[in-house]
């Protein structure tokens, strides 16, 4: 990465630097001037970003810069936090997700989420996957549900490992398996967007590799947004990268561009390890 430390001194701009990519897929999620406040404290400042479908977008940036905060805006998980206020416009397929006519239950089914720490329900593996389809009424009978469970587990690359013990508790799996179970659970309701907040930070390198492989396959069908602290991971799995700093979206563009030719001084400093 370092060889790209570019000669022309990067500017420090107040505006987000957007590097466009002519081959970019159509936009699925878009944010316009999104600000988030926790009580009096502003955590995000006028974030505007377009996120394409059928690709992986990674959010990077130093701790506390607002990556999770922004991610949680996209499926309105911030609604559950007392005193959290979101301003601006976020659209999913050109529809404002904060529109009162939009049901948050539907939104969260369409925008799935995988959390930093694997959090399977303390139920059987089968019930973990079947939960979403059940509450949303996606399967009409048992065999259909069985089908959904199997295909979800297959997509998450977990089927071979657990097919003989679907009735065992999901919490009895290893950490990496649990995280893939959570991904399978998110996939089971056929979401359009999958949000992943540091999905590999609790995993060992082998499990991480598996999850990354999985993300790579899932991107064929889903719009994936991943928060990561590992720049290698961002470089490996994502097509676009967004760099956040102190609540500001500093720079967003094709991943190779961000890592080889950052336009902003702060991005440059971050990816070269000058701060973080």
């Amino acid at each position, binding site marked *: 990465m370092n060889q790209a430390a570019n000669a022309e001194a990067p500017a420090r701009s107040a505006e987000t630097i957007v590097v466009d990519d002519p081959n970019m897929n159509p936009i699925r999620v878009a944010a316009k001037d999104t600000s988030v406040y926790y009580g009096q404290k502003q955590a995000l400042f006028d974030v505007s970003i377009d996120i394409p479908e059928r690709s992986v977008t990674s959010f990077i940036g130093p701790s506390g810069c607002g990556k999770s905060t922004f991610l949680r805006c996209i*499926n309105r998980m911030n609604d*559950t936090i007392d005193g959290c206020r979101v301003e601006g416009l976020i659209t999913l397929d050109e529809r404002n997700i904060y529109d009162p006519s939009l049901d948050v*239950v539907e939104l969260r*089914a369409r925008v799935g989420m995988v*959390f930093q720490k694997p959090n399977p329900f*303390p139920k059987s593996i089968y019930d973990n996957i079947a*939960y979403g389809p059940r*509450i949303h009424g996606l399967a009409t009978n048992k065999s259909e549900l069985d089908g959904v469970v199997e295909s979800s587990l297959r997509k998450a690359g977990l089927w071979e490992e657990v097919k003989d013990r679907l009735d065992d508790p999901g919490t009895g799996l290893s950490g990496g398996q649990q995280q893939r179970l959570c991904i399978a659970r998110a996939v089971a309701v056929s979401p359009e967007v999958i949000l992943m907040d540091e999905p590999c930070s609790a995993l060992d390198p082998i499990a991480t590799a598996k999850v990354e492989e999985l993300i790579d396959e899932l991107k064929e069908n889903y719009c994936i947004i991943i928060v990561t602290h590992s720049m290698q991971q961002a470089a490996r799995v994502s097509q676009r990268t967004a760099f956040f700093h102190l609540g500001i979206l500093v720079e967003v563009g094709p991943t190779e561009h961000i890592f080889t030719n950052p336009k902003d001084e702060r991005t440059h400093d971050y990816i070269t390890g000058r701060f973080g």
Partner: protein
Amino acid sequence: MSTADAALTQKFDWSSESAAARRRRRHRADRRLRTIGVVAISIAIGLLGILIVSLVSTGYRAFVQTMVTVPVYVDPQFVNEDDPSKGNYRAIVKGTLETLFPEVTDPREQRELARLLTNNTQFMIRAKVVADPKLIGTTFDIRVPVSDPFDQLNKGVIDRDLPEDRRKINDKQIGWYDKLEAEGRVSTPFNWGLFVNSDSRFPELAGLAGAIVGSFYALLVCFLISFPVGIAAAVYLEEFAPKNRWTDLIEVNINNLAAVPSIVFGLLGLAVFLNFFGLPRSAPLVGGMVLSLMTLPTIIIVTRASLKAVPPSIREAALGMGASRHQVITHHVLPLALPGILTGTIIGLAQALGETAPLLLIGMNAFITSPPGGLLDASTALPTQIFIWADSPERGFVDRTSAAILVLLGFLIIMNGIAIFLRQRLERTW
């Protein structure tokens, strides 16, 4: 390593005498703390031991009952054959005693003799005859309790060596009793009457059935009110209520409510349920309602604690799947909190079972000789029955008070045992 770091390591010498002394002091403090703990536990167990020993040493006598088996001739001249419940059964008892003790003819002595058997002997005979009218005209054996003084004589509480005027029974009566015993008519079986009879003026007949049923009904009402209401209130406060000054105020008040002396709830029950709503006195329904006022805060507090203990990651997972608030609560949070809720509820009910003061105020310490048939019948409860018996002068009631306390403790142990069992059985790890 910078020079400052080097200076720091040099300055502190772990092997110096003062460092060693400091470590020794810390170890001594550890040992002291442990010793204090052991002493405290020993005191607690010792006190409990004293309580149990003193209860058992007086109460064990009430678990057996001296009985005497006597022949009864149901003389047709004393009984109405069409309606056997009418008849002069007292005369039949008299006849029985005359056949057993033909030598006793003086009416005064006969009266003294009659005191050997429990006062209700005639009613026991009547009950048998009513159940089976064919007994009229025949002779059959019936086993009846002896009256309390002779029960105590048999159990060695009344001392034969005392001068006659300092005992409740005279030498002649002891002679008659000994004669019955010599004939092999006296036995001391397990006192089932303690569990199947209700209260009575006569200790030998008094039992806890009415109190147990009354307590059961009261606890049932208490559970039916406080469990759903408590859980609903706790779920609302924990999951839905905004965190503001009002909910803080409610929280403080609930915690205060849990600390209000129970007699206050009794007064409230008296003023509101009895005087204002006109519900019947002494009814288990009212008892249960008053007890639920006490149990409710406990259940709310325990439920909130259990809900709080459910890891937030589970809520997030469910919310993130698009579960609605009520689905998150009913599918995930409540099932995970249930072991804690149940444990707390049982402990709350156990407290309610032992609660006396509020029940006294609403009149559940009445003298009632049959178990309540329903929630509105007058009844006693276990603790109030203990209260009544503890107030009775007869020697037999002293034993029965201890026995009743043991029975109450037994129920408490069972309930707490269930709570522990549930906690271990249902507890999940995640």
